[in-house]
């Protein structure tokens, strides 16, 4: 530690500070680690009062579902290779494989395929190969750690959780795409206008942001259920019932998110110098052309950050999706309520834990990849205030 001597801290203070930080990190990560450990164990182990049983799973092991040292080493190796590939190899492939301007779509497809390939190798190929190897290698092949993926299997395959996953994917992708398209236009208009009207619109948006979502849903629900009758005079027989339609929910979530989106994008647009617009205008661009060809290319960091928050809103939503979607179009988060409300057996509960871990895993990856953008988004509006 260099710096002025007066700024140097006494040992005691440093120890207290480091200790507090350690406690906080433990507190922040412990629930995640713990539910992840629980989800891989037989129910007896998952809810055992002895923490060591939850970690090492003796009952799971006794039931013949364990991993040997060889399995652990192979699993760790595959994980390590996957991370290396994702960091080193994937970006290049995505960059080369997609036409310019489609990079976001390229990343979406690329990471989806990569994820699927990983699941196929890790849960499909690896157990097959190791199943053959374990009996051959002697002491290295004896199971030592109780671990089973059977709950994941029954959640994803048996209970068809992949349907909810696809629904979540549709709703989330829709919300992010529409919300960014509409939001960037509005954010740019508001940032460059400076008129009294723009000011009032922002104030109204702020009021809208504070509204509880249940109020909006209470207003939406009856018209959505009866929309076919109401719209029939206008649209004839094609009049849709909006209740239960994913695209109707996308529209509602986009609108709920719109106030926040335009505030955030506006503050990003304000950081882009006005000279850039003016130069484009002097060269003969219309306002829209200047926006599309000059401003948007330098706005990507802001757009990605705002997109992340739209993603979080849509992905994490419980209230709107559970009230406006019917059972067959249900997304992941409301679907999990079915497990913990049932709670008839401990197996159900461990399956709920496995479903919860499945929902959390993508978010975990998201923070890993986009930590910088999330931090900049959180501070975007605040710091300049």
């Amino acid at each position, binding site marked *: 530690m260099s710096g002025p001597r007066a700024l140097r*801290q006494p040992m005691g203070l440093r120890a207290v*500070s480091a200790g*507090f930080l350690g406690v906080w*990190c433990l*507190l*922040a990560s412990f629930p995640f680690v713990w539910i992840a450990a629980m989800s891989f164990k037989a129910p007896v182990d998952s*809810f055992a009062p002895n*923490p060591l049983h939850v970690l090492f799973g003796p009952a799971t092991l006794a039931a013949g579902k364990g991993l040997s040292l060889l399995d652990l080493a192979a699993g760790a190796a595959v994980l390590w290779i996957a991370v290396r590939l994702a960091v080193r190899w994937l970006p290049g492939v995505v960059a080369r494989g997609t036409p310019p301007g489609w990079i976001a779509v390229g990343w979406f497809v690329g990471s989806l395929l990569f994820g699927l390939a990983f699941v196929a190798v890790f849960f499909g190929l690896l157990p097959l190969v190791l199943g053959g190897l374990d009996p051959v290698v002697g002491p290295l092949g004896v199971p030592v750690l109780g671990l089973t993926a059977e709950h994941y299997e029954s959640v994803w395959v048996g209970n068809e959780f992949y349907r909810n996953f696809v629904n979540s994917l549709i709703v989330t992708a829709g919300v992010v795409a529409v919300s960014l398209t509409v*939001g960037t*236009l509005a954010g740019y*208009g508001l940032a460059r206008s400076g*008129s009294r009207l*723009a*000011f009032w619109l*922002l*104030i109204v948006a702020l009021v*809208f*942001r*504070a*509204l*509880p*979502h*249940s*109020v*909006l849903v*209470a207003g939406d*629900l*009856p018209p959505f259920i009866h929309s076919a009758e109401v719209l029939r005079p206008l649209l004839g027989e094609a009049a849709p019932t909006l209740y239960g339609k994913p695209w109707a929910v996308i*529209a509602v979530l*986009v*609108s709920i998110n719109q*106030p*926040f989106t335009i*505030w*955030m994008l506006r*503050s990003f647009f304000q950081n882009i110098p006005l000279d850039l617009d003016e130069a484009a205008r002097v060269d003969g661009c219309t*306002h*829209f052309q200047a926006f599309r060809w000059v401003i948007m290319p330098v706005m990507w960091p802001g757009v990605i950050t705002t997109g992340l928050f739209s993603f979080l809103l849509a*992905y*994490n939503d*419980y*209230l709107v999706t559970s*009230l406006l979607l019917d059972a067959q179009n249900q997304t992941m*988060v409301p679907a*999990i*309520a079915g497990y913990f*409300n049932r709670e008839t057996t401990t197996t159900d509960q461990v399956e709920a834990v496995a479903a*919860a871990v499945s929902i*959390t895993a993508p978010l975990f990856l998201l*923070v*890993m990849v986009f*930590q910088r953008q*999330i931090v900049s988004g*959180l*501070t975007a*509006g*605040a*710091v*300049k*205030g």
Partner: protein
Amino acid sequence: MKFRTFAAFVGPSLFLMFVFIAAPLVSVFWQSFHVTKARFETVEVETCTPGFLKPTCVTEMVTRPVLDEHGQPRLETRFTGFGSYRNVLEPDRTLAALRDLDWRALLTIDFWKALRFTLTFTLITLPLVIGGGLVIAVVVNNVARSLRGPVIFVSLLPFIITPVIGALSIRWLFIGDGIMTAFLEWWLERDIAMFAQGGTIELLMLFYRVWHVAPFAFVVFYAGLQTVNQDTLESAIIDGASRWERLRYVVIPHLMPLIVFVALIHLMDAYRVFEEVVGFSSQAHVISLQWLTYDLLTPDDSGNRAISRASASAMLTMVGIVILLVPLLLRTWRDQRPGGPGGAGGGR
């Protein structure tokens, strides 16, 4: 920028907000004064059962729904004035409870129960979130640079997790003989059931919310700490200010706008508390205002949704939000006025 260009840019966003935010508000307002239900008629029905010599016949008045040509009950919408509000607030029981100063009786009425929890929840979590965020920010600012990235990564996890899942993951630590309950039982040497009474559930809900939001406060304050004026700090040292005094008189005043910002965002969000009730399944003991509306909107056992009562409860919830919003609006008004010092807002 000309008005027409401005309108073209802002139009789609305004359209969406108008259709899905402003229109529902009007619709909630209207619904809260009207009730839609099946129309009933009372008819005289003679039912006969075969008997000896002659059938036994009973004539009685039966109330039954009027059916339309498709065999569906015919619905009618009636203006009920403040009827739905009365159903939610139950003024007779409320007044009786107030007259007797009977706090328990008052809290048996769902709306007051929900309001009590929502307000205490908001006011208790507020200082904890601000204090917690501030302490974490100061402490992180104190460690070696190479450690800060991983620490921020770990700290962000509770913030971005799906609220329902976050609440569930805390609940699973405490449920039955979960690890934390087992630990507390060993430590306090007594039997503990965290989910048997309202008080402990409420404690867990408070803990969950602070755990969930403190990272947001931390990140905002941490960013603010990077811009503290070093010259001011050094002059404070020369003037003999202790560590605590520097924090109190230099750093905190510098962070004050951010503290206000986090406080207002947190007030808005905590007032909407909802996911905790779902995640901890606390509805038997503790409910919140948003949950009350949600519960009225979910179909009951016979498949009916209490739309009017839900709308009335939603309108009452909004009264609270308006009261909370006044200071926020005044502040934004000052900052964002055309020609004002521009900046704050956004965030989450």
